[in-house]
């Protein structure tokens, strides 16, 4: 089928034809090369220099200094640990589990309840990042809604953004991002053959066993894809944390993106900040590569 379109100009030379056919790619390729590939190449280069925002001392090549410095820097180590906590806590455990639970429960719920739940969860997802950050700030603030609710229930209150800031930003990210996992799992559960589930039920499997032994193995590809995608999204979250806490108090919510920003722009150490950015980029690239591998396997 395609060959007839491909050989539309048989008299033209093959190479020229191929070049002409590829022409529509040009604008996209130029944009991507200048604004994405360019900065990534710069990122690799700057990471090995001592560039500063003020440019006072000039820029020198310093080899691996930025990296040795980073791994000896307790603030950097702190940022890595917090990023791990944030990604595992809010994405891998939080969004993923909650999204699956919602999708499973919604399949069994009445139609209006299903509509209400999905609308509410998706509404939090559609809101711009900064607005979500502001709302979550208002929720966890000392005089905020959470403490008001706790007071109404006669439960102990506290200043969440100071006592448990990382938990607050994790919950904020779960609140904002669960819709994605919920949508992925709702679609995946739809593809689970009903006969399989019913057969297991006839054989006497309880709801938990059906979920563990039947449903999850069937949708395992969706689980993997979802985990990859939400990890990538969570890894680069900046606006949500920055609006809620600005990385504080102290550096208790300073994940890698926030740490990178602080180093580059608050401390004016562009070179060092870029080295941190490169670490983030490499981790993201690894996850992205694994994700593509999985898609490729699925295709073959």
């Amino acid at each position, binding site marked *: 089928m395609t060959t007839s379109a491909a050989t539309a100009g048989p008299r033209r030379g093959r190479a020229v034809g191929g070049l002409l056919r590829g022409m529509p790619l040009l604008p996209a390729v130029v944009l991507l090369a200048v604004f994405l590939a360019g*900065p990534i190449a710069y990122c690799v280069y700057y990471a090995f220099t001592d560039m500063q925002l003020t440019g006072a001392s000039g820029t020198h090549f310093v080899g691996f200094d930025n990296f040795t410095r980073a791994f000896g820097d307790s603030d950097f180590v702190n940022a890595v640990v917090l990023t791990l906590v944030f990604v595992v806590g809010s994405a891998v455990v939080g969004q993923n589990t909650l999204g699956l639970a919602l999708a499973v429960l919604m399949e069994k719920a009445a139609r209006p309840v299903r509509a209400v739940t999905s609308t509410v969860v*998706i*509404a939090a997802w559609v809101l711009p990042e900064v607005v979500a950050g502001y709302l979550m700030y208002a929720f966890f603030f000392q005089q905020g809604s959470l403490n008001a609710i706790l007071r109404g229930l006669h439960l102990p209150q506290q200043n969440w953004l100071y006592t448990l800031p990382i938990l607050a930003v994790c919950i904020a990210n779960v609140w904002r991002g669960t819709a994605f996992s919920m949508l992925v799992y709702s679609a995946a559960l739809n593809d689970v053959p009903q006969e399989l589930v019913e057969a297991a039920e006839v054989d006497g499997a309880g709801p938990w066993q059906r979920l563990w032994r039947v449903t999850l193995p069937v949708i395992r590809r969706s689980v993997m894809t979802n985990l990859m995608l939400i990890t990538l999204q969570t890894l680069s979250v900046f606006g949500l944390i920055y609006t809620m806490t600005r990385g504080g108090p102290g550096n208790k919510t300073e994940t890698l993106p926030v740490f990178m920003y602080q180093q580059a722009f608050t401390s004016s150490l562009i070179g060092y900040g870029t080295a941190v950015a490169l670490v983030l980029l490499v981790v993201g690239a690894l996850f992205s590569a694994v994700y593509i591998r999985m898609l490729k396997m699925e295709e073959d």
Partner: protein
Amino acid sequence: MAVTSSPRTVRVRPAADRQAVRGRSGRRVATGRVVVNGSLLLFSALYLVPLVWMLLASVNAHGSFKLTVPSPTGANFRQILNTDTTYRPMLNGLLMCGGGTLLCVVCSVLAAYPLSRFRSRLRRPFLYTVLFSTGLPITAVMIPVYSMFVQVNLIDSMAGTTLFLAAAALPFGIWLMKNFMDGVPLVLEEAARIDGANAMQVLWRIVLPLMWPGVIVVTIFTFIGMWGNFFVPFILLLSPEKLPASVSVFTFLSAHDQTQYGQLSAFSIIYSIPVVMLYLVLARRLGGGFALGGALKG
């Protein structure tokens, strides 16, 4: 293919209804349904608290963090509806996100055509590169982008920011668009080819009219992403009069004290309305959002 080639409209099977009809162990199923429905409703109510707070605070004259409003007022909205606070940031956002979306969609359509129609040794590597870049954390390249923009004097330029937003959205745009285009049958195209139409004519006259829904989905998706993007304009723009709404919400938040949370809530609502409306359009097109998960499922 991993990503579905066209949006599917999937209905969730009413499993619960079927179970009830079957009647076997009817009471236990009924109790189960009550528990499921009850817990989902309770959960929704909790989830809704921050959103309800925003709506209440926007009409609350005292702008406190409480969940009550003694006397609703429109004063918060009246105070922010002026050029500096609302109109200009919204217009800036519209110009940059609108321009960026247009550029991104045009480039994606053009790029998707050869990727969807022609076989070449470079096609697969190119597609995988595109897919790979959709996963890269854009946040991480912002510092080098900043340094680069300083060198070529594009810092604090709305045009520069627009170009970058378009480029950052491009990998996902190309990927989605290519998948939508794969769903357009080749038969009509071949007829036009035999009649002597060239590639661009075929794309414009035959392929595009058949994939408008896909183009609209990509457009809305790209725009929603850009409208909510905070980090890119936050880094690349400096002058207050060039900032889009996403950044001005943030400056509003950090510059004012607690007494003005009412105004901030009002502004947040106005800023969020465009994307909420667009999402509703998108959800209607994709059949209630379930197919959106399918299109992204990978």
